[in-house]
């Protein structure tokens, strides 16, 4: 008898869930909305600014080629290396070297952003980095300087109903 009561309770819980909203969102038709603008770092105050850690963005006019980001990543995943870009002449960057990032190795920890004292390397919201072969995951400094495209609409966000949670 206790068996049947407990089984009926289980069935009641299961049937309650049938009438609530689903949690899945339909990926290529709907995209996830991420708040904010990406992770940044303020070197004077020594503290980071809240944001999602996705693909990096490089401000070429501020980068002096000091290689501190490379030194930071040496112990983590060796994803950054300096590359000589001869046709970019910037007054602060005498040797004309800029970082290139290999996204097949990067773990998106953000310590390279923390290491940069000139606010030249930040991270953005973009997380969809795909390619057909490994070589095109190596982003050159010019590729890193392009700001990411805006995420196509419609975007959904996790919303809380009264007793269910859904993407809407």
């Amino acid at each position, binding site marked *: 008898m206790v068996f049947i009561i407990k089984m009926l309770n*289980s*069935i009641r819980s*299961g*049937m309650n869930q049938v009438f609530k909203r*689903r*949690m899945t969102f339909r990926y290529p038709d709907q995209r996830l909305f991420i708040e904010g603008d990406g992770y940044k770092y303020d070197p004077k105050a020594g503290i980071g600014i809240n944001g999602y850690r996705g693909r990096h963005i490089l401000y070429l006019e501020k980068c002096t080629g000091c290689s501190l980001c490379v030194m930071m990543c040496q112990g983590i995943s060796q994803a950054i290396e300096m590359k000589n870009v001869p046709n970019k002449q910037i007054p602060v960057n005498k040797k004309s070297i800029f970082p290139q990032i290999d996204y097949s190795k990067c773990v998106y920890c953000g310590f390279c952003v923390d290491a940069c004292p000139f606010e030249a390397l930040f991270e953005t919201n973009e997380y969809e980095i795909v390619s057909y072969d490994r070589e095109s995951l190596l982003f050159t400094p010019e590729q890193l300087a392009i700001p990411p495209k805006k995420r196509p609409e419609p975007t959904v966000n996790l919303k809380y109903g009264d007793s269910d949670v859904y993407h809407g």
Partner: protein
Amino acid sequence: MSKIQTFSSFVKRLIIVIIGLLITLTLLFSLLAYFVPSVKELQNILLSSIGNPSLMLNYLDQKGFGLNSLFFKVAVFPGFTWAALIAAEIIWFERKFLAKMQMRVGPLYAGKIAGLLQPIADVVKLVFKEIITPSSSDKWFFLSIPIIITSIAAALLAVLPVSEGWIIMRSDVSVLIIFAIVGFVPIAVLLGGWASNSKYPFIGALRGLHQMIAFEIPMLISTLGVVLVTGTLDLVNIVYTQSNVWFILLMPIGAFVFFSCMIIELERIPFDLPEAESEIASGYLTEYTSMAFGNIQLAIYIRFYAMAGIFTTMFLGGWYGPQILPNGFEIANQVIWFTIKTLLVMILAIVLRGVNPRVRIDLLLRMGWSSLLILSFANLFLVILILQTELIQMVGV
């Protein structure tokens, strides 16, 4: 390569091929000669039925394919096509309903509305795959098992009374036929595991055998309660007896035992030990690929529908229900009520699938040989008590 080594083996294969060809061609031509009319006759009928469609129906009746013929009953309406359609829709419904219970969306993209064509997409995919037979198995035996299993499942459909006139075969001993067919299923499962000639399918088949044999007895004894009240073994008479009150109200314990045994015999979750446990290979289904696998899945769902239909006939009042269609359509009304009740039974089995984990083999066998057996005997004694004290007359059975 190495099979044709001697001249005698070559001659043997040649004779087999020639005899096979002769038999096939004879059968084919005789069928064609009986069924296909000559071209002139076909032209006449098509032209004349444009103005007068009943001529076409008469013609079909005359040829033996009409609406009341055996061919129609077996192939279309309560027979194979109807059952296959319901099986396909139950597969879709099960996946959608389980997904809703699990906070997710089920099949979505096949078919414009909510993935309705997903089972058909699966069948088409399976047709295009390759049938692989293990090299150490007995090839023809291995490939004939899906056909045997499908035939057994389809044979159960023959005694199901969908409405008053629509039953493929009405006989005096329908209940015995059902139990004979249900008793043959474990043998087919064992043959499937044996023919694969591999360790895990064999273990799965043995577990299936233990499970199915253990639960035929409570099923039989709970059916005995129904038979005692009605006094006949004929399924149509059992439905006639329930015209005033359904048997589930008279013998609820018997209905519970029969329902549990039904789920266990069908090897549905939570009792799918032969299929999904067995060292996490697929049990006796492991070595079947492509359309052989598709056939076995179809057989499993047709058997599900047939057993749910039998439960409806014996305990839920068969085809009786209030008249919701206008007054000329009694038979359609009966068909609709039968289908609704069968679908409700199947939905209950699907809900139980979503809510329970799998049981262990020793818990299952202990439950079968002790609890369910005692419950079914208790049900039998209660029924005898009700009959003796003539309470039956009060409910108008």
